[in-house]
């Protein structure tokens, strides 16, 4: 989640891992974009001091023992990553780590090197003796990395060889997060390394129950969820989508006001503010309760309600010869904005498929473009008449 959509990781991507583990993935910034890892080694070592407790010697060299309690630094880092600050470089060094008094018989958990994914795993291992094999997923959470294939068969095989794992443990079982499955062929890993792959629960929080149940996940542990809280975190805390547009729109209005367009004021500005908040924030929150399935439709529907509200506030009703252009422009532009932003939330959801979104876009994108363009032309007409 974590790691979210992709909660896996991505709660929605869920717990942190679930979310991030999350497919919050799909298109949340923690997933999108591969940044070149500059000064990689340096950034790895700079941050490690507070979460490594000690090191102990093994046949393959010193292995770091990690704390299972998150420190203030970890929490601060999580908040920053959530807000998109340094998220693309919030990673740890791939390799083998130990928890508690790990011994040759201890279970091995496989994780991503996005620190939020790693943190959400280790905090669930309190009181356990275990190994954590961290793959190089370029700092991307489990679910998104699995989709890209970096949390994948080849990397697992490579990492097992590189760490000398077989000389440290006496068994041949790897526990993978279930959301890593899109990138990993379990039977291939077994064929190439003799390690049996067991898929653990979607959410790291279920790990102890999973172990207690003899490494069997219940049906609930296997399901990705998309709760109100997950959607809130994705929209309100990951201030990426709606708020960026708010800033842009506000700046545009401010500049137009400075240029002295008389018909522009707060009154002209708040309808767009509302349309952005509706599409980027309200629709995701109310997602299961808004009728209809296409995300753009849900956004359009609430956008129409908003346009009607605006028409009442601006005294455009009843519609007259003097007010119809402005009212029509509102009904064309505002729902189009909400629909477009709502459609963007498909990437953060945990249940849309590529085929489904393609089909939705085939209808929604032309309709949104047409509605928006005609509305803007009307608005321009009204504005210039006011000059």
């Amino acid at each position: 989640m974590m790691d979210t959509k992709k909660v896996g990781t991505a709660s929605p991507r869920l717990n942190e891992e679930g979310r991030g583990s999350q497919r919050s993935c799909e298109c949340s910034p923690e997933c999108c974009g591969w940044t070149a890892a500059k000064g990689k080694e340096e950034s790895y070592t700079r941050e490690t001091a507070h979460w490594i407790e000690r090191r102990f010697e093994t046949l393959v060299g010193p292995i770091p023992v990690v704390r299972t309690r998150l420190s203030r630094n970890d929490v601060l880092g999580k908040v920053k990553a959530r807000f998109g600050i340094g998220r693309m470089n919030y990673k740890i060094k791939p390799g083998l780590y130990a928890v508690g008094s790990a011994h040759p018989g201890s279970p091995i958990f496989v994780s991503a090197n996005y620190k939020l994914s790693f943190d959400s795993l280790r905090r669930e291992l309190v009181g356990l003796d275990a190994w954590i094999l961290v793959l190089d997923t370029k700092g991307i959470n489990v679910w998104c990395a699995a989709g890209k294939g970096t949390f994948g068969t080849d990397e697992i095989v490579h990492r097992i060889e590189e760490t000398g794992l077989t000389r440290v443990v006496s068994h041949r079982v790897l526990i993978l997060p279930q959301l890593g499955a899109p990138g990993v062929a379990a039977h291939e890993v077994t064929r190439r390394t003799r390690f049996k792959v067991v898929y653990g629960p979607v959410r790291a929080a279920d790990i102890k129950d999973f172990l207690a149940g003899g490494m069997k996940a219940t049906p609930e542990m296997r399901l990705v969820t998309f709760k109100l809280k997950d959607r809130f975190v994705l929209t309100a805390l990951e201030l990426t989508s709606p708020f960026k547009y708010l800033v842009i729109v506000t700046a545009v209005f401010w500049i137009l006001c400075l240029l002295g367009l008389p018909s522009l004021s707060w009154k002209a500005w708040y309808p767009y503010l509302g349309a952005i908040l509706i599409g980027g924030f309200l629709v995701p929150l109310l997602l299961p309760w808004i009728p209809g399935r296409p995300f753009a439709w849900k956004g359009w529907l609430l956008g129409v309600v908003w346009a009607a509200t605006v028409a009442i506030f601006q005294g455009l009703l009843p519609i007259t010869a003097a007010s119809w252009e402005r009212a029509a422009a509102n009904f064309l532009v505002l729902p189009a904005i909400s629909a477009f932003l709502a459609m963007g939330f498909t990437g953060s959801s945990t249940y849309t498929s590529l085929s489904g979104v393609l089909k939705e876009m085939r209808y929604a994108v032309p309709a949104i473009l047409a509605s928006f363009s005609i509305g803007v032309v009307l608005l321009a007409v009204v504005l210039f008449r006011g000059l």
Partner: protein
Amino acid sequence: MKEYRHLGDVATLAYDADRCTGCGMCAEVCPHAIFCIKDKKAAIRDRDLCMECGACAKNCPFAAISVRPGVGCAWGILLSEIKGREAPSCG
């Protein structure tokens, strides 16, 4: 998650029962519990819930399942259209 359904009848998920040995890997990895095992064979419970993550196909040792994996992300699709890339993916 009955309340979450996107468009129906679009998923590219295909399943060949003749190849299936009923090992159950697909049911284990699917995040939406689409597969169940009935009479020692996998069965698709509800294919409209498929999000095309590809986990089932990837983990089927007998190649009984196929799906075009991808991300259901409108931004990703728009970006890949603009940049002229084939498969929409994040980033």
